[in-house]
């Protein structure tokens, strides 16, 4: 086996994984704060990807700007969704929250399908590539990873160095206690929903930096499933866990795909994903609290 090829795939897995991490943090925040599993997660990634595509194609805006725009868009959508829908399902039955969030996801996908049609779209933004292990890594992909790291650093600054961030962490730990301490819990829930959705849409933009093709209304499904695996890997609700889980999953996905293809498997991608789901089940059985929690 070619070690250089494997290393190259692991590196691109790390880049992709950092992007997975960012969007999965969105899923984790919403679960952590409201105990709602956002089964429509992938639809928001799709929205972000379309935002990057349209802003680039129509207005020539580079994805760095789309990233900010889509984060703001996601924040607004998330807060709106909280006041219209999530508010009603927070303490309800698991089943109802799953159905409601699934409905939201289907609605967004169908809306995208209605407005933009089910064509595969892509854009090409070339800013150069650097040679690495005999192959080339696109600078756009690297900038995606850098943006991911910048996002998680700013997220931690927000959570641990600002008053609002502390309130958010307090609500995650104990909503009732936070309420007694004078925190407006409803507002924090809304903020959390906004932040969660915003990170998912941001993740969509970053994904197009890694792979600017294959943008279409139903692209989100595999990302929803991967986000489940990643979130559980890091511990549902844990932010740093989600990011590390993303890195681990990215490496497993790319590395295993490469190894299986070297072993002569005709569909290495499927086997790699199978491996991912086996790991999911194992983690759920052995350490349901995730890799990071004590």
């Amino acid at each position, binding site marked *: 086996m070619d070690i250089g090829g494997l290393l190259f795939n692991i590196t691109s897995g790390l880049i992709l994984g950092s992007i997975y991490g960012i969007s999965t943090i969105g899923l984790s925040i919403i679960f952590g704060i409201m105990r709602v599993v956002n089964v429509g997660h992938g639809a928001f990634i799709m929205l972000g990807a379309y935002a990057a595509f349209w802003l680039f194609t129509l207005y020539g805006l580079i994805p760095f700007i789309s990233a900010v725009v889509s984060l703001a868009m996601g924040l607004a959508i998330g807060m709106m969704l909280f006041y219209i829908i999530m508010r009603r399902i927070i303490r309800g039955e698991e089943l*109802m929250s*799953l159905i409601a969030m699934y*409905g939201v996801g289907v609605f967004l996908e169908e809306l995208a*399908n209605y407005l933009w049609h089910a064509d595969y779209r892509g854009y090409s933004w070339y800013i150069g590539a650097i040679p690495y292990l005999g192959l080339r890594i696109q600078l756009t992909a690297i900038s995606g990873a850098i943006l991911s790291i910048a996002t998680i650093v700013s997220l931690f600054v927000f959570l641990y160095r600002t008053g609002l961030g502390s309130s958010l962490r307090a609500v995650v730990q104990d909503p009732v206690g936070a309420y007694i301490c004078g925190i407006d819990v409803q507002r924090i829930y809304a903020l959390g929903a906004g932040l969660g959705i915003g990170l998912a849409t941001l993740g969509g933009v970053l994904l197009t930096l890694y792979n600017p093709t294959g943008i279409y209304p139903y692209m989100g499904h595999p990302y929803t499933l991967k986000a489940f695996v990643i979130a559980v890997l890091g511990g549902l609700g844990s932010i740093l866990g989600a990011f590390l889980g993303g890195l681990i999953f990215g490496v497993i996905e790319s590395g295993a795909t490469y190894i299986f293809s070297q072993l002569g498997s005709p569909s290495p991608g499927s086997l790699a994903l199978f491996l991912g789901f086996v790991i*999911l089940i194992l983690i759920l059985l052995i350490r349901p609290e995730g890799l990071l929690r004590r």
Partner: protein
Amino acid sequence: MRLSWISRIQIILALAFYAILWGLREVFPQYSQLLTLVIFYTALGQAFNIFLGLTGYVDFGYVAFMALGMYGGALAVKYVASTGLAPILALVLGPLQSVAMAVVVASAIGLIALRLRGAYFAIATVGVNEGLRHLIEGARIWGGAEGVIIPGDLRKLFGDEGFGYIATVYADTMLVVIASCAAIATWVLKNSRIGYGLAALREDEDAAKVMGVNTTKYKIIAFITSAAFGSLIGSAWALKVTTIYPPEAFNITYTIEAIIVAVIGGAGTLFGPLIGGVLYTLTKYYLGVALPGLQLLIFAPILVAVATTFPRGVVGSIRMIYSRRYILRELLR
């Protein structure tokens, strides 16, 4: 098992409903396409309700059992066609093989995944479903991504006319029988010790455990029963669709539709899936006719509205409104 007369009437009404559904299909052949869908979704909801409704656990990977059933049914047809056994064996072996596969897989999943609760259980079942699908594609089991295609084999076994008959009348009748049996199973479980144990579990699992209810055993019984019926539906459905591809067979949409049918009607009630199946199919069908391509766009907000404002479903809500009328309350259990 002591049964009141109300509970006897209850099961008779449910079975009568299925008999009427089957009769309508015979009397109005022009609506057979729509009625087939009603039968399919009602059966799916009825089968899923045994687990979802009675335990309150959300199995997001339920379609895996239907998919296994589709493979079981289709592979039996292929096997019989290639060995030259009596053609009728294909229709006997299919359901048997489907149930056997589903029971084995459900026992394995049940024993490990049912230790998890709530969101963790839902995610684990999604994982099992996707894992199975990718295993079939990746390891090229049962034709891998190329799928199993059986129209040719069915023609070889039964001739052109026989093939048409099997894909319509036979498969639909099979679905009605499966749905009726699922209704009977629901009724038997609900009126037995297991049903009361599950009711306690649904309200408060820890309390039920403390009171001495063997929650794990009951959960696994409901899970395997529900999975077996799901696989039977799959083996009948395989005779209708006749081509089985992993992405379509394991499509999570079927799980969601089963959930919707059960929930709109009233999860955990005997009549819930009947009413939910009729409502869901008619809405979906006529939206598709009136606004082709837009039915899901319109359906999704309805779904969200139902989940946020109407969680008990039709039957559950009627029961709530008339909760002081003993007969009605007991009848709609």
